[in-house]
């Protein structure tokens, strides 16, 4: 295993070394919280961030992306992939990227995602303590990084251990900074740090995650959905902040000249009432409870079925974003509690 040591005093030097050839996207202070954004000045990088409001996926799937431009009716392909280092991605978000790779890979692959992904090197960052009280990565099995992360950082206090996971990661490191190989002592400290982290993360689900897809299937007609729907505002904040949500809307935008324009895609949400409306007005998911159920079943079952990975990585962002305080931990646990019960109480999940 190729393991290097990056002293913390050299972080800025490394970021500046990367900036020569790459767009560096990483965590930085943003609107009173933290967000992934382009690091323009190396001292903006905030690797000690707890979590971000939006997940890093926007570096690969911009909130608004041009599919193509057209001029006098002639469409022209738009290629806008930018060589990018996605720096400081927590383990839950690394799992989410793996899911995005499958959802936007597939048959046929999404050409824009694939192009940007091919130009992107991912640097992971080990989580050593829960980032928020709504995180449940340990329960979802996303507390450790997935296979194939280009580079992965673990904080040893005064330095980061840098594990090289891919050839792309090795090349990036060599081109941007010269780092010493980790010593025996560093590796012992890495083992100790990793050994100590597990106990800090509580189990938040009352059941094993392997039961989740079956639980979701058996909960299709649960009253939990109607109870949650009574609180849900239908605002779509949960899907907006979700690292595994992939839905988009497509719009044509004309220039003021009315001669040229663009077809763009923008993030969309299955929680918005009009999401499944067809021309003519029929809504194939007309009630809020059905929309909530669709979202939770998509996270807990459908994406696992379609892509082999759980659609929820336990980041807890949706719980933090929800004005009605609907949380995945409470919802999954309520569905589990109710599974065997003949007559569920109306107030259980509201509490």
């Amino acid at each position, binding site marked *: 295993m190729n393991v290097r040591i990056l002293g913390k005093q050299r972080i800025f030097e490394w970021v500046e070394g990367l900036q020569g050839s790459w767009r560096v996207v990483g965590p930085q202070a943003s609107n009173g919280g933290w967000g992934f954004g382009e690091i323009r000045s190396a001292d903006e990088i905030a690797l000690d961030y707890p979590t971000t409001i939006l997940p890093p996926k926007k570096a690969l799937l911009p909130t608004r992306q041009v599919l193509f431009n057209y001029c006098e009716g002639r*469409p022209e392909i738009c290629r806008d992939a930018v060589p990018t280092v996605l720096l400081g991605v927590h383990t839950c978000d690394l799992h989410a990227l793996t899911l995005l790779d499958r959802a936007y890979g597939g048959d046929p692959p999404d*050409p824009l995602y694939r192009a940007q992904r091919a130009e992107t090197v991912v640097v992971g960052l080990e989580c050593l303590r829960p980032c928020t009280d709504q995180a449940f990565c340990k329960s979802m099995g996303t507390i450790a990084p997935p296979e194939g992360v280009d580079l992965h950082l673990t904080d040893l206090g005064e330095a980061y251990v840098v594990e090289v996971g891919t050839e792309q990661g090795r090349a990036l490191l060599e081109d941007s900074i010269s780092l010493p190989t980790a010593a025996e002592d560093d590796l012992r400290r890495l083992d100790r740090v990793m050994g100590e982290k597990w106990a800090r993360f509580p189990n938040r689900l009352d059941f094993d995650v392997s039961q989740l897809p079956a639980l979701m299937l058996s909960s299709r007609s649960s009253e939990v959905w109607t109870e949650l729907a009574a609180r849900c505002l239908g605002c779509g904040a949960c899907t907006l902040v979700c690292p595994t949500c992939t839905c988009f*809307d*497509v719009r044509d935008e004309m220039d003021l000249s009315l001669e040229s324009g663009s*077809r763009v*895609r923008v993030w*969309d949400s299955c929680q918005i009432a009009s999401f499944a409306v067809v021309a003519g007005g029929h809504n194939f998911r007309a009630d809020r409870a059905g929309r909530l159920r669709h979202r939770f079943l998509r996270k807990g079952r*459908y994406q696992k079925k379609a892509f082999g990975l759980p659609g929820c990585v336990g980041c807890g962002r949706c719980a933090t974003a929800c004005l009605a305080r609907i949380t995945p931990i409470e919802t999954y646990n309520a569905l589990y509690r109710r599974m065997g019960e003949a007559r569920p109480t109306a107030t259980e999940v509201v509490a």
Partner: protein
Amino acid sequence: MTTRLRETLDATSVYLPVEARIRSLRRLTKLETLFTIELPAGVSLHHDPGQFLEVSVFGVGEAPISISSSPSRSNGTFELCVRRVGEVTSALHTLHAGDAIGVRGPFGHGFPIHQFRGKDLLLAPGGLGLAPLRSLIQQVLDERRHFGRVTMLYGARHPSELLFTEELEDWAKRGDLEVHLTVDRPDEGWTGNVGVITTLFPKVQVHPRNTVAVTVGPPVMYRFVLIELLAKGIPEGDIWLSLERRMKCGVGKCGHCQMDHIFTCQDGPVFSYDSIKPLPEAL
């Protein structure tokens, strides 16, 4: 040697439409127009009956439209029967012969016509459902000897809303296609059956073990037509439907057409009833 439209998309971007041209238009009803579309030289459609295209009017948007003509009658062109109902379809209705549109596709799974061979066919389109089903009917008529008895039950709300009326007459005259029509609300000249499409079912006898049923129509129609088809003893796996959904991308990415874990645009829009029966969101 031609390139398939779908291959040209895969080679560039699956979201990038190919510029096609309207060769002619034929007004069918107050709301529906039949567009004859021509692809650029060297590009062919190669579709299966029941598949759809994403049709673009640049500056307005894109909408999923089923292909109304059969592959057997493509002859360099194909037909789209479009109802003026949304923004894109309204914009399409303002266009003229010679105007350009964008097309992507064909997408999804159509009718598995090879599985229908050797069987009797019971076709039950309602309203605009005849648009995609016409593609299958033309193909069946062009290889008529491969199929047993073919019966069509077609319902519309009003005689003025019946689509492809000239072809309906031709089909009825052929003698090898049994056509039954009905309208919900007759006008003065109407001498045929009055009532919803289910009122036609008692008029036909089927051999349930050797019959494939195909029904295409609005969601509410399926509930009642399925009752009739199942009552006739047709197995759930031999009943085929085409589902309408908001299919924005056509390639299983945008999420709008998802029902349970199924992407209607890729796995459908044509499904057998037994494959969608377990999905609460399907019907």
